[in-house]
């Protein structure tokens, strides 16, 4: 008896869901095992995790609030990943978006909300988008790998943000602490219904809008179709006379704009001012989310929400069980590993059975490649 691995001929359908659920369960099981090994109650830990992440109205809302920036950033990087352009720079684009929005909020603080808010978003998207265009230009003009340049621009973007906040944007009333003045009320995104929906704010609206736009763009427009074709490789694209360079600019610019939008929403809705600590790595989480979701918008929404919920849950686990803070990232890493491993089963089928006889399967005698022991 051997394990026979074959490439699937047709998609699994609803089986996909089963694979994902099993992978998730496996990750959580390993997590519980780790808790047990460190002398805590494994099952108790998972119970707390789920109660804290999904058990109460406010925990669902907290997770949703946290998922908003992750979703927008992930959508942005997914767009470029679609055409195999590796934008690792969402974190820096997020920072630039925050900077752009802050500039608008501080410069035009007298404007009413309906004028100031769109202006902030516009500035944020322009700054984030420009930050995304830089690696695109370097890639197309000088052949610099966008993986390296977009990653490096993250650090520059964050330093730029710090430079401004420690420098001339510093609030004179902050006792020298690094933070800008609080935005005027027109520059702060309001909560939808503070009594009923907790911290959930109007920034949530950006998610369905961006998500639908992403989906329509990819499935209903010519550019979207060309973009998918470019995913087959640059040479294919050029051979088919697709506007490859333009598309690279487009996805990097749009991706940057989305991350920038996330940055402006985050500072405007949850902190109400710019401070260096708004940079908590959503841009990197976004990459994980985009991959886990295989670049599909509804998958991104779900995964962003799930990871946000687990982070919220992990905090309460800390509070109630005194486990180290590292449990959060460990859990995230385990989920990523298990789901990526699970994705193998989406492309290949594994069955127990007699390996096909070499001469029957492959006259060339290369059967070993097809059927591994």
């Amino acid at each position: 008896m051997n394990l026979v691995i074959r490439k699937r001929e047709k998609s699994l359908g609803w089986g996909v869901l089963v694979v994902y659920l099993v992978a998730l369960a496996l990750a959580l099981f390993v997590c519980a095992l780790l808790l047990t090994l460190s002398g805590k109650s494994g099952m108790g830990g998972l119970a707390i995790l789920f109660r804290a992440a999904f058990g109460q109205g406010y925990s669902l809302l907290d997770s949703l609030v946290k998922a908003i920036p992750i979703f927008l950033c992930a959508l942005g990087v997914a767009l470029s990943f679609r055409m195999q352009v590796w934008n690792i720079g969402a974190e820096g684009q997020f920072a630039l978006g925050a900077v752009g929005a802050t500039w608008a909020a501080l410069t035009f603080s007298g404007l009413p909300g309906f004028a100031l808010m769109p202006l902030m978003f516009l500035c944020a998207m322009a700054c984030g988008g420009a930050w995304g265009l830089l690696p695109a230009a370097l890639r197309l003009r000088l052949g610099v790998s966008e993986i390296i340049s977009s990653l490096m621009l993250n650090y520059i973007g964050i330093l730029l943000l710090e430079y401004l906040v420690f420098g001339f944007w510093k609030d004179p009333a902050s006792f020298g602490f690094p933070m800008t003045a609080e935005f005027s009320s027109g520059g702060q995104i309001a909560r939808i219904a503070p009594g009923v929906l907790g911290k959930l704010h109007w920034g949530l609206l950006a998610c369905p809008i961006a998500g639908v736009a992403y989906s329509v763009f990819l499935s209903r427009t010519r550019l979207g179709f060309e973009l998918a074709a470019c995913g087959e490789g640059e040479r294919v694209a050029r051979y088919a006379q697709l506007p490859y360079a333009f598309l690279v600019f487009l996805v990097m610019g749009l991706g940057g704009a989305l991350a920038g939008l996330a940055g402006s929403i985050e500072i405007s809705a949850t902190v109400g001012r710019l401070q260096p600590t708004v940079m908590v790595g959503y841009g990197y989480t976004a990459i994980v989310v985009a991959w886990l979701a295989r670049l599909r918008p509804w998958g991104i929404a779900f995964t962003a929400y799930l990871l946000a919920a687990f982070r919220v849950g992990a905090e309460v686990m800390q509070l109630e069980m005194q486990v180290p803070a590292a449990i959060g990232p460990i859990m995230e890493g385990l989920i990523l590993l298990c789901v990526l491993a699970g994705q193998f089963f989406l492309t290949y089928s594994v069955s127990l059975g007699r390996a096909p006889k070499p001469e029957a399967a492959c006259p060339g005698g290369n059967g070993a490649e097809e059927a591994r022991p």
Partner: protein
Amino acid sequence: MKHWLRAAGVLVFILALALAGCEKAPDKAAAPAAAGPKTGELKVGFVYTSPVGDAGYSWAHDQGRKAVEKMDGVKTSYVEAVKDGADAERVIENMARGGFDLVFATNFGFMDPTMKVAKDYPNVKFMHCSGFKSSENVSNYFGRIYQARYLTGITAGHMTKSNTIGYVAAFPIPEVIRGINAFTLGVRSVNPKAQVRVVWTKTWFDPALEKDAAVSLLDVGCDIIAQHQNSPGPQEAAQERGKYSIGYNSDMSSFAPKAHLTAAVWNWAPLYEATVKEVREGTWKGNRAIWWGMDKGAVDIAPFGPMVPKDVQDKVLAQKALLMKGEDKIFVGPIKDQGGQVKIAAGVKAEDKELLGMTWFVEGVVGSVQ
């Protein structure tokens, strides 16, 4: 489009659950803080900015928590490695929801989140560390660690041979600048020729980077490394080069036994125990700025390393005795800034407000406050 129907379904589901759950949410708008003693179990929560295993700032706070945990009828818990901003607000709110009576938010960046949550939970008492905002149910507190730094500065002033002392510092905020100034005033009170060179790492806890920063200071001739960081990286750098070091937060001698002269250390237990006692007895009040010094035991210096001669130890301990009596003359003028301009006039003692907003270096510091 089918995908979108599914996504919309997920969203509606989540919102429906959320709405359903809201009915179970605790009643926030309960009557404001009932005065009077609190009977039964007292739940005290602590929010830390870094992991408690850091041997640094959060570790020191956690020692205070452990002291509180030993008190009768008190239960404590904590959440570590909490980022400022939105995350902090959620963590603090989860404590308030979870029935905690008193929450210590131990990092500057938790100030606004604490204020926001405090407004919604008038029954919960909040103590915020190192900030400047307060309200009916929020007081802020801190320790005069600069007094301890002054004493470590005197030690360094005696021990330096190159008259150049390095200082690896986190962020150019008043707390750190005040510490550097007090340290430098200590150094120059016994060694007017000495200089203190400052590098900013813009990190609180990054062992590798903070060690590198110390190495760069050693490269330019510093023979003692002081630090305002939460990692022991700078201590290790000094020991590897055969130079001396001065620790911060806790006794760091175990990381660099051959280098560690002494350290400016926090001792939060007295303040935390006193606060919990106040809450228990119903005498706790908001709108206070509690700033304890060496006289109340909130700060101290670590035991001297064996390389510090007896006469130096005695001189430092003599100054410490004055501080223990509450005679704090560290920021008494004339004190000049780096440009030689008198910032605190002769005979004048800087007020706490000035110290809390200090953004300039005293004469003798080499470096910029940017």
